[in-house]
């Protein structure tokens, strides 16, 4: 889907991607692969052959590279939605604090401290 010039449904919020129709279409294949990680057999299928599994779901090269790199910010800019990506992170036993740290350049402990600092 191309840009929609002259019509904008959202405001710019720094550090935040609005997961709207445009992003949802961009990330459809990636999110579908991650959605299917709900099932153990698909998690196993991915672990056994990452490249073949990504091909099967039709991921584009940018999405594949972000998966290879475990690059969460990259996955989001490729149209990934955090709720589906969380199932990908789950394969590696990552918590939401681990994922938060990965996205903000913090260690998991630093990220936890940041959370607590807002109390």
């Amino acid at each position, binding site marked *: 889907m191309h840009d929609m010039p002259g019509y904008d*449904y*959202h*405001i710019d*919020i*720094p*550090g*935040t*991607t*609005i*997961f*709207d*129709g445009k992003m*949802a279409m961009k990330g*459809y294949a990636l*999110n*579908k692969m*991650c*959605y299917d*990680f*709900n*099932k*153990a057999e698909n*998690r196993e299928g991915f672990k056994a052959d990452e490249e073949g599994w990504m091909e099967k779901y039709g991921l584009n090269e940018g999405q594949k590279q972000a998966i290879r790199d475990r690059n*969460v*910010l990259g996955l*989001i800019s490729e149209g990934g*939605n*955090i*709720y*589906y*990506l*969380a*199932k*990908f992170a*789950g*394969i590696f036993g990552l*918590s*939401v*604090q681990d*994922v*938060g740290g990965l*996205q*903000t350049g913090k260690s998991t402990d630093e*990220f*936890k401290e*940041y*959370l*607590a600092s*807002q*109390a």
Partner: protein
Amino acid sequence: MAKILGGITTSHIPAVGNAIQKELYDDPYWKPFFDGYPKVHQWIKDNKPDYCINIYNDHGLGFFLDRMPTFAIGCANEYRNEDEGWGLPALDPFPGAPELSWHIAESMVADHFDLTTCQELAVDHGFVVPMQLFWPGAPHHPDMPKTVPISANTVQHPIPTLARALDFGKALGKALQSFPEDATVVILGTGGLSHQLDGARAGFINKEFDQYCLDNIVSNPEELTKITRMELVEKAGAQGTEFLMWMMMRGALGDNINEITRNYHIPISNTAAGTLLLECAA
């Protein structure tokens, strides 16, 4: 006719499910969170609602982007929590209340709410964790009510407006009050409060905004309908939009309510956790 006893809100963070399993109630990290629930347990014990309307948001188990409903209602005999990708064990199924589900669907579609009815529905932590918090041992708590799951879309924009969410609750309340059974109902609104899981702003929490929401959801929910959805993302965080569930719950309670208990704690997992018990005046 059925009677609405009140509404209960809670965050529904997956980590809470783990903490319950490990019984970490007195752990220093968890104690300030679990301290919010004894008064809820007492109220449930005193009132023993027959039905529970569980208003939650699915996080990518029950629905995918191929078919994303704005509002969905479970209309099934039972609901199962399935693996969400972390290999969690499946609980026994939660008993449904299909007569009540279809009654709500009939009433609300007549009132121009465009529901998606679901005769099969896998429910995720958004549904299950509140059940475990309010009815320990769920679904095997002796006072376990039958349940109707209602889900609103907070995964993909456009999400419903705060005004629509409150109106949804009002129409839900009307539906419940016309249910021809001498039964009692409690309404759960789960999710929130402020949190953001994704992006460079991950970890964002907004205590001031949460307090504003907590105060107004009790006394002046109409005020909250002035918040635009983009403002909600900005101030509550990308996943703080789950506050819509609280609005839906609140709309069903009507004007005459009493606050029984309130708890607020930062952080649980990545989230500002809020709990509220509102009782409808008799």
